[in-house]
């Protein structure tokens, strides 16, 4: 599903590469934690999958497409197969829960009937039934992140990328978020989650890829956050 082969990425005016000869394979339906200190290259890894950035060398395949040969024109279609969740939720403050989720479908031109049918289903899937007409500022951080997950998942993407989704949320609420991510993963969606949250990684016992200074230093199935403990 995601295939990195010897990928190197250096940002302009930086002498150290953000990613250094990274090769990794993620299969369909896998759940992968991406761990490592800040600046280790986790976000760059996610941005390369989304083709927000292009690698300097190496090849990346996502959902069967060679990204180096993907024209700019087709990038939106790639992104429709990838859902994204961020630490800061990125909801539209002037739209309610339903509208925020529906927005993701409206802007890719889905018909209104389809939107009316699927949005309530997804809102229920993330555990926000009965709150469809609340505004984002009326919701707790955990609930807002559930809205963001609903928006990321509403178009049934093949891949869900989560960049520290529990970074702004207390540990108790984080468990609920992880349950939703797990539920999404069980529908067959590949999930890649970058995180600093050791407790969550340890409790899930999923595959862990650890980056340090742009290199993969550990790739372990059913791993824990750090080998030291």
């Amino acid at each position: 599903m995601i295939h990195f082969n010897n990928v190197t990425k250096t940002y302009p005016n930086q002498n150290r590469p953000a990613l250094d000869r990274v090769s990794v394979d993620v299969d369909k339906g896998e759940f992968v934690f991406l761990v490592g200190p800040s600046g280790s290259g986790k976000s760059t890894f996610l941005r390369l999958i989304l083709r927000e950035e292009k690698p300097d060398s190496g090849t990346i395949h996502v959902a069967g497409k060679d990204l180096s040969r993907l024209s700019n024109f087709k990038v939106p279609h790639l992104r429709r197969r990838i859902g994204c969740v961020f630490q800061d939720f990125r909801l539209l403050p002037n739209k309610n829960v339903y509208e925020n989720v529906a927005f993701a479908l409206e802007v890719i031109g889905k018909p209104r009937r389809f939107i009316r049918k699927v949005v309530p289903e997804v809102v229920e899937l993330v555990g926000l039934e009965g709150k469809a007409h609340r505004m984002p500022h009326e919701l707790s951080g955990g609930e807002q992140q559930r809205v963001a997950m609903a928006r990321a998942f509403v178009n049934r993407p093949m891949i869900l990328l989560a960049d520290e989704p529990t970074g702004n949320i207390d540990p108790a609420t984080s468990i609920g978020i992880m349950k939703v991510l797990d539920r999404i993963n069980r529908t067959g969606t590949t999930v890649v989650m970058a995180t600093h949250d050791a407790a969550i990684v340890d409790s899930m016992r999923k595959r862990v890829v650890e980056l340090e200074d742009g290199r993969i230093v550990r790739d372990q199935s059913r791993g824990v956050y750090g080998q030291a403990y």
Partner: protein
Amino acid sequence: MRAGFIFSEVWIGLRRNATMTIALIVTVAIGMALLGIGMMINTQVSSAKNYWTDKVEISVFLCQKNSPFDNCKGKGGITQAQKAKLEQQIKAMTEVERVEFEDQAQAYENFKQQYANNSVLVAATRVEDMPESFRIKLKNPENYGNVIETLQKAEGVSQVVDQRKIVDNFFGFLGTLRSSALIVALIQVFAAILLIGNTVRLSAYNRRRETAIMRLVGASNLYIQAPFVLEGMVAGLIGGVISGFMLVAAKIVIFDGMQNYLVAAARMTWEDVAIVIAFTMAVGVLICVIASFVTLRRYLKV
């Protein structure tokens, strides 16, 4: 393509930047109105010129009883003998192509036709007031100097008028008017382009969250850019409609007023005005769309 969705986004965008949008609309309206007026003057000049080119001739007015002109004072009217002699003299000139005699009745008819809109003037003028004249058509209209000089001194001639001079003065005035209208229109277009740049930048800032999410969920560039371009287009269209009204007003106030002094054949029709309005509206919309599209690339990463 969900048209309803995009139009609601456009409407929200225009309302958020209301002051900027109004400034843009006013600028476009004035710019396009001036462009239109320039074009209307152009149409007017060319139709009048066509009319005048084969009409331009030298008029040799003859003395009558009580003519106020210096050449005739104390001599009474022109005699038949003098008239015949003058005609011979004109016909003998090599520059002359043909000459016609216009008597008082004919002159009065032409006068009535020319000032058909001005009934007061026509009513106040009698046939006896009209001067007799020879109308001379030259082989080459440029060679009028010698002819005028000779005839000016002839017996019984009150005045020699070269119509080219009058017509040229009139066209010169219209030409200046047109140039100034077009220059101001150009300045307005430039201002409109700058305003569009600013509007797009404000819009892009106001909509940065929406744009970021649209990119993220895979909205096509068309979907992301359409609201911005449509905002420019709607503003351009509204400005164009306003300029259309201004041009209709200009036709009624300026051109119809001026046409009291022009013959019917050289008048501007509503059809001409419609063409000018359609053209200026198209130009206004096009400028707004192109300017939006170009500035979009600076402020919106897609």
